[in-house]
């Protein structure tokens, strides 16, 4: 038995099931990070005047700027991989998806160096409330990156070829869904970057 509207759009809503599903999931993610942002503001207001700014100076702005660029680039390659599928160019899809994964790996490597540099200077989550929320937010964001990489790798490996050849439309939808998630992860970083590194 086929579930209706898995691939095709339902006429009155104009959506397929997965599209609505991923947006609801992203809505819940907005509230998850919303809870943590709210905690950040709460702690910042509760800390001594200017303390968050002082504590934040320990972070490495150039590395974070690099990482911001890397994630933005990965968002572009991600959307390009979807556009390539829409243009029936599977080779280009492979290329762009590979680049997206490469960007994700670079992001995590940079993050690793940032974390170890902090630990080397004996800066831990328990050091102060700023570092506590810094490690929590970036750590949770990093987990989201890893989650996205797992899904994208699955679609990039031969499993993707098979899906593309048997059900091209369904596969393009799946890449669009994965893309929506990935852009969201990028979007979260766009807010994390200034509030953690610059303010």
């Amino acid at each position, binding site marked *: 038995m086929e579930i209706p509207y898995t691939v095709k759009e339902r006429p009155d809503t*104009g959506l397929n099931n997965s599209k609505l599903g991923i947006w609801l999931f992203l*809505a819940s993610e907005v509230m998850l990070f919303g809870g943590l942002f709210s905690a950040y503001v709460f702690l910042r207001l509760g800390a001594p005047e200017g303390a968050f700014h002082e504590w934040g100076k320990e972070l490495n702005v150039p590395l974070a700027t690099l990482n911001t660029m890397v994630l933005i*680039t990965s968002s572009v390659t991600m959307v390009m991989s979807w556009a390539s599928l829409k243009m029936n160019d599977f080779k280009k899809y492979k290329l762009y998806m590979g680049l997206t994964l490469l960007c994700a790996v670079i992001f995590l490597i940079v993050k690793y160096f940032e974390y170890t540099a902090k630990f080397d200077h004996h800066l831990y989550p328990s050091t102060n409330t700023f570092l506590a929320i810094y490690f929590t937010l970036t750590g949770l964001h990093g987990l989201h990156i890893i989650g996205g990489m797992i899904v994208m790798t699955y679609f990039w490996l031969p499993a993707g070829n098979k899906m593309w050849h048997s059900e091209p439309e369904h596969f393009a939808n799946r890449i669009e869904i994965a893309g*929506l998630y990935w852009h969201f992860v990028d979007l979260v970083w766009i807010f994390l970057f200034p509030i953690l590194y*610059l303010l």
Partner: protein
Amino acid sequence: MSGHDNTDIQSHVRTYMMVFGALAILTVLTVGASYLEVTSGESIFIALIIASVKGSLVASYFMHLISERAMIINILLLTIAFFFVLMFLPLMTATDAATIL
């Protein structure tokens, strides 16, 4: 977002590249602005404005919200409303505490 023909997609690709350029410039701007000699209130304002513009660009063009269906827009508006409720929670607590002191 389905049923596009090739030329349609190609014009999309041009948009994506322009958005990419804008995001890169805004990233440089926000880092630059953090070195300005302004009060902390002003710098928070500038940083959040730039981040919101960048976020809207990603959401509108990469996530296609600009041409998305009403159902999804409505769900997101509801979510954003409750997101702001969450954000006002610490602010309310802080201002409220100040009045009793």
